[in-house]
């Protein structure tokens, strides 16, 4: 282990310890708040695999998130008694389907074209979900009850907000470790070389399109997982979350936290949600918090393109 590795794992353990203790210490509101930051962080982290590592900005992550949500809803409403693991399975299947569709078409395109087509594809899913009322509940979405947290034959407990937090924390941490492993693997290196120079990567002999498809699929799966968690946490699936604004938020979290860092997007999600909460407490619920946040976002693109985490890292390394 190098010195850098030691510092990294020490920091990792400290943050994990804090996050594990947090729900015991925090009051109900902030406990849920923190859980949601983790879920948004997972969504943002999944899209970082595309933005930060493969160099493709997705404006369509709401589709994967939404299908994860509706997939979980389907499992929880159809199968009785509702089963958590089935919800995850269904959610992942839904997200994978959407991701395959999006990946197949939009990976033929690059840069801005990719961004636009992912946006348009996610709107297709939105329109379908919004108008197919008999199945999806249309505008009103679907409501269901939270399943128990269970490990078959061993353990079965009702989800309260503390256990929910731990569960989310476990899933997000697991996902982070997997994504970290992926980005450091040879596969991840190819993705990064696509970002740096796509033509050259192709010339060396890598099937660039296949790599891109796999990265979109992978990203979509983790986004879908975030959708499942959100559905279980809030006990509903709503078309609002399939709408483009969710994708927009995802991109904002990434830029604010720092792309290409995996942890950065979680920091970004936290920063965004905290600022939002702060503003609505100071100025009231009606305050158009997205106006100042929009300006902060633009200023960060121009002056702090490496995001909060990148900035902190440089500052620490001075």
């Amino acid at each position, binding site marked *: 282990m190098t010195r850098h590795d030691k510092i990294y794992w020490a920091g990792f353990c400290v943050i994990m310890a804090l996050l594990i203790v947090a729900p015991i210490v925090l009051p109900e509101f902030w406990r849920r708040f923190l859980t949601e930051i983790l879920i948004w962080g997972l969504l943002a982290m999944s899209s970082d695999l595309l933005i930060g590592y493969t160099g493709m900005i997705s404006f369509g992550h709401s589709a994967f998130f939404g299908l994860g949500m509706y997939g979980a809803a389907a499992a929880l409403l159809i199968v009785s008694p509702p089963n958590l693991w089935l919800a995850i399975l269904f959610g992942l299947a839904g997200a994978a389907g959407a991701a395959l569709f999006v990946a197949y078409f939009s990976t033929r395109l690059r840069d*801005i*074209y990719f*961004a*636009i*087509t992912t946006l348009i594809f996610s709107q297709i899913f939105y329109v379908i979900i919004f108008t197919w009322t008999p199945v999806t509940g249309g505008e009103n979405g679907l409501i269901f009850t939270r399943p128990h947290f269970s490990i078959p034959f061993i353990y079965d407990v009702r989800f309260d907000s503390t256990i929910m937090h731990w569960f989310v924390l476990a899933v997000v941490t697991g996902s982070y470790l997997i994504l970290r492993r992926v980005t450091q693997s040879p596969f991840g290196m190819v993705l990064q070389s696509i970002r740096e120079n796509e033509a050259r990567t192709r010339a060396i002999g890598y099937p660039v399109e296949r790599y891109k498809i796999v990265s979109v699929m992978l990203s979509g799966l983790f986004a879908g997982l975030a959708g499942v968690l959100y559905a279980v946490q809030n006990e509903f699936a709503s078309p609002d979350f399939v709408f483009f604004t969710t994708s927009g938020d995802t991109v904002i979290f990434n830029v604010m936290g720092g792309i290409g860092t995996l942890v950065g997007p979680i920091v970004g999600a936290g920063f965004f949600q905290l600022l939002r909460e702060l503003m609505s407490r100071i100025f009231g619920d009606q305050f158009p918090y997205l*106006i100042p946040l*929009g300006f902060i976002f*633009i200023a960060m693109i121009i002056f702090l393109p490496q995001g909060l985490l990148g900035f902190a890292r440089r500052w620490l390394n001075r």
Partner: protein
Amino acid sequence: MDAVVQFFQNFPFELLLIQTINGIVTGMILALVASGLTLIFGIMDVVNFAHGELFMLGAYVGVIVITATGSFWLALIIAALVIAILGAGIQIVTLRPLIGRDPLNTILVTFGFSLILQNYALWQFGPVARKISEPITTHFNLFYLEYPWYRLLIALLSASIIGAFWLFLKYGKFGIWIRATTQDRVMAQAMGIPVPWVFTGVFAIGAAMAATSGVLFAPLVGVNHTMGLDWVLKAFIVVVVGGMGNLGGSILAAIFISLLESYASIWVNPSQAVIVSFVVLILTLLFRPTGLFVPTPK
């Protein structure tokens, strides 16, 4: 066979004609929106995510001016001017520092502006849609319908604005600057063309075109803060289908897609008819990714 015969016997030909006219009317507005978008993209590789919001704010400025003065035509001009200035401001303050950086940064910045402008509109004007009355309220008979002359006027006005713009590009001094800059930014600058100001000017013109379409369209459905996203999405589709940066292609694609949507809404409800344009986009991407109305590159 019987089914086919029956289909044609019951086929609503009058409706088809009405929808053709409707499609051309929305197509012309869409063409006006998309020309600004494609112009901005063609010259500076900026995908203006806030284009729909400029459309929406243009409509709101129109509402304000009409309420104050009662003149629709004055509203049209003032909205174009105000939004042009806003566009120029946005370009100077945020896009100019990004020249030379990855173009993806520009899509992020303009996305940030679309958030700001949309929420500003919601905060300033509230969630209830505002109505503008049509400047011309006369109708003519079209089968069983009283068809408003105003709609035809919109199509005509949009067409003449696009036509005038085309002439300006073809013969005007600034038009030649724009075309030269689109083709070779560096050489244009070496010929003494102030490229940074050409960029600002083009952004302002694009913004003004969006605002104009916003005011023209406002009497048809009313103005609200979310109308921008629908339009920018449609304009994106049009711009990709027409071939990014290709003005003529965008105009054709705008009319083509609007007609298809318009026909589709004979059978399904309008919010589902949007899917038709999505399908056109997918097919275009699959078979002619450079654009439907672009000659195949040699």
